[in-house]
């Protein structure tokens, strides 16, 4: 079988591939093979994958092609992502495929079960092409903290792609897959999305099941994904979202048709611009990002959205609160990796994991709990209230994702605090549980820049509506890295 010319994976989206596969312009095996070939050629440069599951992927693709041949159109609608190659962050448990969390502690761990979302994605017909690189245990903002080597930014391989879902962002940016899953605990989807010109969704806390995804900070972990377009992001969420009997933190909240309002536009919508998301504004490295944000807001104004200045007064405490609650939970969640039943022992933990275990153990200790954890939880409530108040005045909030453009590999390695501060605009939504959609807004010095659209709890539909309107006007996703 020869690959038909019609397949151009650089311009391909899920929506387009779905159509092509159904019309049999090419087969799922051909599509999967095209991606596998590209991974084989380019992954050594970018290091986006820890494991490529070639054999399993081709087998799944073959099965998908059989279904395309044997099922009626009506039956096919039960498989909304049939034949679509995707990649999974290597922190999603996959039955029979090793799952490392980016750490050598689990370098040989093969889960005996699938995460709920993995099950859902398989049931929807996706082809799982491999497991992507990440900062070990999802601790990091650059991807450099992976114990399987750093992932490189396809827009310039001297730069970081952002983390912790570094490999997933790069898998989509470099056309290794049509979509890739991630986790966002403090910005780990939105930040790498903004560094790679991809669309990254951090859903509302509880919207997507965490069951089977290795926990980092249980009260903030959200399960999202990277796609090229907002429409694809909506398609993907339609599959992954929903209450799960295996995760007590997923509420009984109906899953709407995320495509329904996609093309409704932004006319008449009130967009809040938070005053506080602007620290150190005089620093020259941030000027370019600021300019891009201004341009993006102008586009939305032009499309009919109304810009309203709002205040989220407790924003300045967000990083401090986040770096108490998150390590506290990390210290407890990593306790099971004691080397007794699976994985290597504790000496295999890297510096960053050890740092967080120490921090969290300290902040939870008798005598310190009230001063740290308890106080942080109180401020967290205030941060939530800030958002609730804001959404009484506006429909959505738009803010920068990162205060700076991507940095060079190694630049912040010796300064953990500087690394922590790169999440300054993203952690608030994790503390409050609100959904955030990162959308590309262009390039500064040839490197991607993104903005995030934050909405009330369970307002993903609205975020897609706003994101899509902006995207259709600007089409930044059409620009592909030159690799």
């Amino acid at each position, binding site marked *: 079988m020869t690959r038909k010319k019609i397949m151009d994976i650089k311009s391909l989206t899920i929506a387009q591939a779905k159509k092509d596969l159904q019309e049999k312009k090419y087969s799922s095996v051909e599509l999967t093979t095209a991606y596998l070939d590209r991974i084989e050629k380019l992954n050594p440069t970018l290091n986006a994958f820890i494991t490529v599951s070639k054999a399993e992927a081709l087998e799944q693709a073959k099965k998908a092609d059989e279904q395309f041949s044997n099922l009626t159109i009506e039956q096919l609608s039960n498989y909304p992502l049939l034949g679509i190659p995707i990649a999974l962050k290597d922190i999603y*448990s996959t039955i029979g495929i090793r799952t490392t969390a980016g750490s050598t502690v689990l370098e040989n761990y093969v889960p005996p079960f699938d995460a709920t979302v993995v099950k859902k994605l398989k049931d929807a017909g996706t082809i799982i092409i491999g497991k992507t690189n990440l900062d070990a245990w999802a601790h990091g903002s650059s991807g450099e903290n992976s114990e399987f080597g750093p992932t490189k930014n396809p827009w310039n391989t001297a730069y970081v792609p952002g983390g912790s879902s570094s490999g997933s962002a790069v898998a989509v940016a470099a056309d290794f897959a049509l979509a890739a899953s991630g986790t966002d605990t403090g910005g780990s989807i939105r930040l790498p999305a903004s560094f790679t010109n991809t669309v990254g969704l951090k859903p509302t806390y509880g919207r997507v099941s965490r069951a089977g995804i290795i926990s980092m900070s249980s009260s903030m972990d959200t399960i999202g994904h990277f796609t090229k377009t907002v429409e694809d992001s909506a398609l993907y969420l339609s599959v992954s979202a929903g209450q799960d*009997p295996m995760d*007590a933190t997923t509420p009984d909240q109906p899953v709407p048709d995320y495509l329904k309002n996609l093309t409704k536009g932004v006319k008449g919508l009130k967009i809040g611009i938070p005053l506080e998301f602007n620290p150190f504004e005089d620093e020259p490295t941030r000027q370019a990002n600021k300019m891009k944000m201004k341009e993006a807001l102008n586009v939305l104004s032009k499309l009919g959205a109304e810009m309203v200045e709002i205040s989220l007064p407790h924003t300045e405490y967000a990083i401090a609160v986040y770096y108490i609650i998150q390590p506290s*939970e990390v210290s407890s969640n990593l306790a*099971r990796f004691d080397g007794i039943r699976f994985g290597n022992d504790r000496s295999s933990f890297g510096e960053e994991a050890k740092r967080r275990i120490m921090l969290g153990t300290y902040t939870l200790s008798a005598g310190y709990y009230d001063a740290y954890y308890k106080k942080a939880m109180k401020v967290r409530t205030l941060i939530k209230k800030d958002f609730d108040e804001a959404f009484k005045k506006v429909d959505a909030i738009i803010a920068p994702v990162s205060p700076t453009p991507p940095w060079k590999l190694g630049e912040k390695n010796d300064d953990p605090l500087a690394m922590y501060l790169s999440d300054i605009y993203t952690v608030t939504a994790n503390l409050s549980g609100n959904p955030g959609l990162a959308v590309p807004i262009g390039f500064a010095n040839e490197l991607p820049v993104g903005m995030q659209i934050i909405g009330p709890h369970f307002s993903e539909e609205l975020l897609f509506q706003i994101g899509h309107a902006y995207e259709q006007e600007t089409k930044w996703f059409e620009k592909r890295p030159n690799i």
Partner: protein
Amino acid sequence: MNTYSPVMGLEVHVELKTKSKMFCSCSADYFGKKPNTHTCPVCLGLPGALPVPNKTAIEWCIKIGLALGCEIQLFSKFDRKNYFYPDLAKGYQISQYDQPFALKGSIVLSDGKKIGITRVHMEEDTGKLTHAGDSTMIDFNRSGVPLVEIVTEPDFENAAQVVEYLKKLQQIVRYLDVSNADMEKGDMRLEPNISLRKNDQTGLPNYKVEVKNINSFKFVDRAIEFEIKRQTEILDKGETPPQETRGFNEAKQNTVSQRIKEEANDYRYFPEPDIPPLRFTESQILDIRSQMLEMPDEKYERFQKEFGLSEYDAKILTRDRALANYFEEAVKLGQKDNISSKQIANDIINKKIDINSTPLKELIEQIAIRSQVVTIDESHLKETILLVLSENEKAVTDYKAGKTNVLMFLVGQVMRKYTSKIDAKIVMEMAQNMLQ
């Protein structure tokens, strides 16, 4: 010599007999099962697996709280208790720290002494370690089985009170049908804390000794007696016993130091983020209460009042619910045969009736037969007596000569001629008349 009075509190763990475990759907029936056959990613603590609380277990915990007269909390939550032990799959135990399901209850002992219940909370059991030579094996079948912990105030003054409290608690959870409370299977685990107060001293002593690994009421008594003696000796020397955890050694019938205060764990409790806090309404609690059947103390009171039983009989008959039910059913059934509740109580208690092998109908029939008053046909009795008198002429002569004690012999002879039991008094009167 003994110038001290014991100050004691108790922590009791009761394993619930729910079908499934506390946070997963594995069977909780682990006893005697092949190791590691009742496990799943959740109770094995595999990465990413999340706990989902068992609704029935929570309701049963609340039932225990209600039965102990506790205030049920409308807002409650689970917490993580962090510590390392190879039988603890996740490196933390899901328990309840500062907002348990139930607070402030009590159990009243037979002498009127009230033992305060501080709290009743829910947690999960750990796996089980087996040591064989140099290696240790872990069985996770028990991991995640629901446990209810019941903590008392330091209200106990002696070992007898502790044992009575434990028996009452065991009876209550069995009445509620939420635990088998079988000591031998480890369904109920006891941890007394014991210290001594000088008789002229007020307030709590400045140390506390906790004793673990006790699996029988007899051993709790032994452990307490041992500790009282041991601590008395230390105090007599003018020293203070160290604050510590000790283990009970069955073979030696003594306690051995396991951990002193300085080595005590800092459990780093914090709210379990994987389980949202639980909120209940008054009506939900009322609903749980309405499902509860009569508790032993209520039954005990009622049996005395309703059936006119003695305290002793009521106590025995309410010891377990099945026996109490058997008795009540028997009373109902016996009514039409005019059998009194007292007769039934006597029969069940004195004849040590096995309620499982004696159907109610059979019980009533037997009692009826035994208590039947045979109506004697007078003319037939007369004939029988005449017959006996003619057969025993010598006795008759003796009687007439004044040896009146032969009358009893003659009555006996008459009664032997009857197959059923007849009233000896009637026979005697008639025989006496006929002899004169």
